[in-house]
């Protein structure tokens, strides 16, 4: 595929200072193309969560460069002004648990993001309906999150992540609470959505069931990433 959805070069993150300083990320290099789904795996304490927080513009890296599409987000201590708007408009999040807003129905859980970005309500709801149809949960559009099954909730969470058509989606253990069949279904959906909406998807996971489905995998150990080819098993 041409270009890249997200590119990280020499990213480092240090917590604290002096003798107590901890280097959570020492050398991170990643490139994910639009429409591609890559896995990010590593043992506990390897820096996965810190990396995800840096990629998600929740914490700032100490050094390195991150580019999202054509836009530079971080560059050795420099950062763009509005990280909140960046998270809202250009990064999609899928969490281990769906974390849907319990007091909004399924449609409004998705439509909330375009609305926050200033889109009109009607257009936002149209977009939500379109995504729900694409994810085969269109019939649950008016349901409350508590009325959905675990798999349905996760699909709605994916739809929410896609709501503002972000160039990148960060999925944090999205299959952890699901059985094999549902876990593979989620990966299938992520692959389909990545291709359909030309979105780069990074899946952080420990889940042995889904690791063989990635064509490319980034291993992270002691804050350093290593790229490997995956099995790319069809799902």
């Amino acid at each position, binding site marked *: 595929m041409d270009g890249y959805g997200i590119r990280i070069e020499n990213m480092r993150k240090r917590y604290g200072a002096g003798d107590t300083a901890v280097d959570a990320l020492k050398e991170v290099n990643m490139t994910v193309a639009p429409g591609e789904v890559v896995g990010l795996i590593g043992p506990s304490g390897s820096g996965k*969560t810190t990396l*995800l*927080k840096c990629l*998600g513009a*929740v*914490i700032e890296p100490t050094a390195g460069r991150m580019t999202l599409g054509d836009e530079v987000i971080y560059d050795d201590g420099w950062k763009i002004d509005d990280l*909140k*708007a*960046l*998270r*809202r*408009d250009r990064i999609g*999040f899928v*969490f*281990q648990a769906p*974390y849907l*807003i*319990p*007091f*909004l129905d399924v449609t*409004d859980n998705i*439509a*909330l*993001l375009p*609305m*926050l*970005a200033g889109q009109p*309500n009607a257009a936002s709801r149209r977009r939500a309906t379109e995504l729900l149809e694409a994810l085969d949960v269109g019939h649950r559009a008016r349901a*409350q999150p508590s009325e959905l099954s675990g798999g349905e909730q996760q699909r709605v969470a994916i739809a*929410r992540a896609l709501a503002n058509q972000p160039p990148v989606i960060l999925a*944090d*253990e999205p299959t952890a609470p699901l059985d094999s069949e549902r876990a593979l279904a989620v990966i299938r959906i992520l692959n389909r959505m990545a291709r359909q909406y030309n979105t780069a998807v990074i899946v952080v996971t420990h889940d042995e069931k889904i690791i063989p489905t990635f064509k490319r995998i980034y291993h992270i150990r002691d804050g350093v990433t290593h790229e490997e080819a995956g099995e790319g098993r069809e799902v």
Partner: protein
Amino acid sequence: MISLAGRDILHSWGKFVFTGVGLGLLIGATLTMAGVYRGMVDDAKVLLSNSGADIWVVQKDTLGPYAEPSSLRDDVYRSLRGMPGVARAANVTYLTMQVKQGGEKENASDVRVMVVGFEPGQPGEPGYLVAGRRITRSHYEAVADVRTGFSLGERIRIRRQDYTVVGLTRRMVSSGGDPMVFIPLKDAQEAQFLKDNDAIVNERARTAANPALNRPGVPGLLEAIQASQTTSRSVNAVLVQVQDGQSHEAVAEPIRRWKHLQAYTRAQMEEILVAKLIATSAKQIGMFLAILAVVSAAIVAFIIYTMTLGKIREIAVLKLIGTRSRTIAGMILQQALGLGFIGFVVGKISAALWAPFFPKYVLLEPGDALRGFIAVMIICTIASTLAIRAALKVDPATAIGG
């Protein structure tokens, strides 16, 4: 944009409504306390209006007849009628006492009343009746306020005499909120000033033993003295009505100067009743209102804070997906205001429902309700700051990494 606060309230309406009802009862108690104060002020004003007087003439150097005891000779009114600018003047007596309601029945109960002695057709008589007729006989008839619980034809025992209730009136209460019973002036004087039989016998014996008062060769002297000792020649006040076009103060001033009496105009009497007589009660109620306001604020703060803590994960997600801080703060503020609104509506309805059952008059004024509503909204706004602070401190990173 969706109203997040509105959706949350609709989603968990039961929690909001029940919490709002609890808060509303507290607000209802607060509004009622304000109503009690207003009722006291109104009672005082009604007392003055119903007396029909423009000037109250009382014993010198007293704040009588409502705030302090006052005693005047009952012929003072005659000389007052001759003063310039005076249209009418009449004696009145006021005596607060316990009377039995229910006669000799087993379930008879004590009622605290203010017995008013008045002269029919003169200032001091009850302004209007809601049942029965006015007093037409010279003795042993009474007109009672409906709050006494007496009904027409019932008999009231006052000191040594029984009085038949021939008329009922309304909103005739003392400054202390005790309902009034009106009886003829002569009867009231007797009830208030006449000594009991033993005291009279002792007084007569003491007088008879005094050689200066029981002189041999002066027939009739002892009897005359003894008769004067048992007559009731005192009243508590003289109510004066001023001629049209006359300044009340201009009429009161010569009375103070030449009659060696105290004369209060309507404004001065209102000052005595409102500013002096119920000042301590007003302060007491003010303290109570302040405490209730603090308690209400603490409750709203605690409820909104607890609700916010229960939504920490959702707030973290909202912040992570780029929701502005002011949107989150607005959601919490709107919920606090929503809770306050529910509480105020419940409180207003509760206060209106239970006010008639209070023993004293509770006056719920629209102005107080408006001020109460504004106070509730301000309290809710202040109370929500704690929860807003907690929400704004939530790290969006907590949504990532479990």
